[in-house]
């Protein structure tokens, strides 16, 4: 069966747009939640600058819970919540909710690791200078960890692309959905190949940009 490009072309275009929307918005919201999460996990831990066992332990447990649920199950499990937030549980925008809930805790952990890599001497220095906790985070911890944070975000973005391909399950559309509906269910191998190649290019691009930025910032 030959591929009808007059029909398939716009379909492909829509799928790319849907993937970009899911990954783009998903990343923005995941960062908005994930970065503060990572910072809080670092400063509240034992011997952190704002040590608080209750906050640290509860956040850590919550993160672990969300990180243990397989994405495909998470999508279904939080349908009521998704409906509450965006008014529907079907479609590209609805898919962003589970994507964020899946990715934000992951980013939180990655950011936590990046920040923990910062030499304790830097924190000591900041305290000796009379920096406030906020200044320590903003002026010392985050800038010193920036190279590593960018690499972490790169990894998370690639994970997000993978997850977004699964979001077709709730009618999220995107390249993954295209591959399943046309490539798998309708035996159009060409479509399958096109989508996979597109995803590969996408991932390569993100990784290269991430490496480049990190290299520029990291000076160790």
């Amino acid at each position, binding site marked *: 069966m030959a591929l009808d490009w007059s029909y398939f072309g716009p379909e492909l275009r829509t799928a790319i747009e849907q993937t970009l929307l899911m990954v783009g918005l998903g990343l923005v919201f995941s960062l908005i939640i994930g970065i503060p999460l990572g910072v809080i996990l670092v400063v509240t831990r034992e011997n952190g600058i704002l040590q608080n066992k209750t906050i640290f332990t509860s956040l850590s447990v919550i993160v672990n819970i969300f990180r243990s649920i397989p994405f495909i199950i998470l999508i279904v499990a939080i349908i009521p919540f998704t409906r509450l937030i965006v008014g529907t549980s079907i479609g590209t925008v609805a898919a962003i909710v589970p994507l964020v809930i899946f990715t934000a805790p992951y980013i939180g952990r990655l950011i936590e690791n990046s920040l923990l890599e910062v030499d304790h001497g830097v924190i000591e*220095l900041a305290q000796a200078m009379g*920096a406030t906790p906020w200044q320590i985070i903003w*002026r010392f911890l985050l800038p*010193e960890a920036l190279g590593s944070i960018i690499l972490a975000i790169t990894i998370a973005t690639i994970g997000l692309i993978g997850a977004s391909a699964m979001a077709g399950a709730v009618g999220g559309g995107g390249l993954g959905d295209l591959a399943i509906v046309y490539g798998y269910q309708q035996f159009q191998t060409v479509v399958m190949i096109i989508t996979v190649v597109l995803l590969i290019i996408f991932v390569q691009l993100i990784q290269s940009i991430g490496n480049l930025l990190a290299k520029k910032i990291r000076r160790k």
Partner: protein
Amino acid sequence: MLVLKDIHKVYGKDSKRVEALKGISLEIGQGEIFGVIGFSGAGKSTLIRCVNLLERPTSGEVFIDGVNLQHLTASQLRKERKKIGMIFQQFNLLNAKTVFKNVAMPLIIDGRPKEEIEKRVNALLSFVGLSDKAKQYPDQLSGGQKQRVGIARALATDPHILLCDEATSALDPDTTQSILALLKKVRDELGITILMITHEMNVIRDICDKVAVIDGGVIVEQGSVLDVFSEPQQEITKNFVRTIINDAIPPTIKALIKEKHQENDSMYLYRVLFKGQSTHLPLLSTIAKRFPIDVNVIHGTITELQGIPFGHLIIEFQGEPSAIEQVLSYIRQQEVTVREVDIHGA
């Protein structure tokens, strides 16, 4: 200026309980360079961190210019810390920032206007001799240059005190000398009081006015550098002094002396210490001319402490006991310390 009163620091609880500091009291005067020396694990890192409360003492008090730091609120303490500069063994520079930005950090934190920061940082970089490195990053600098950045940064907010945490321990001997010279300049030109901890006795010898020896969380000995070096009391202090002033008789010479002593009872060994003016005396030749004895120098060193020459000799006198008594009383009149050396224990 800086007073520590009976500082105790305990880490952990029950079976894991470690008492790092066991009642440390120190008094450091305005403009002094005070050195605390000890082996690693003696508690000196904890001690210096108790001064700016990076470590909270379990008990005891820290006063700076009469202010009890423990009574301050968090924000008052931050303000007080800006008057206490600190430099570190590993420099603790911000790798992602230029030399200029590193030095500017304390001023940025303090919310100073941009023009003031620009002016101040340039003046500081010129003070430490790094004006040409402003735009470089720490990974482009040598160890000595990194510590200079650290010093410039520590001076940014015009501190009254500079805390030096093993500031030269990661540096080679030549670089150590240049950093010590810079620290001396900080004291001499800016009048900043310096507290330094180190395990290197040459650092103490070269720039400190006073020294305290810390061992097992206790100050075992303290005093002026000249006094402690010339007459160390504790065994650990003697060991530290020996790393600089070798007063031990070399084994081969010791063996010879013992052999000789068995043949000849009228052999006497003395340790003679000269300080300051007395090093200029032609003491030995005078003795040899004036008294009917022979003089034999076994071992000796002369160093400079605090710009004062300090000599240390081990001398053998051969002659009648009565003549030797006369010699000893003559030496003592010259304000030179002399002590008999036990040949078997020496």
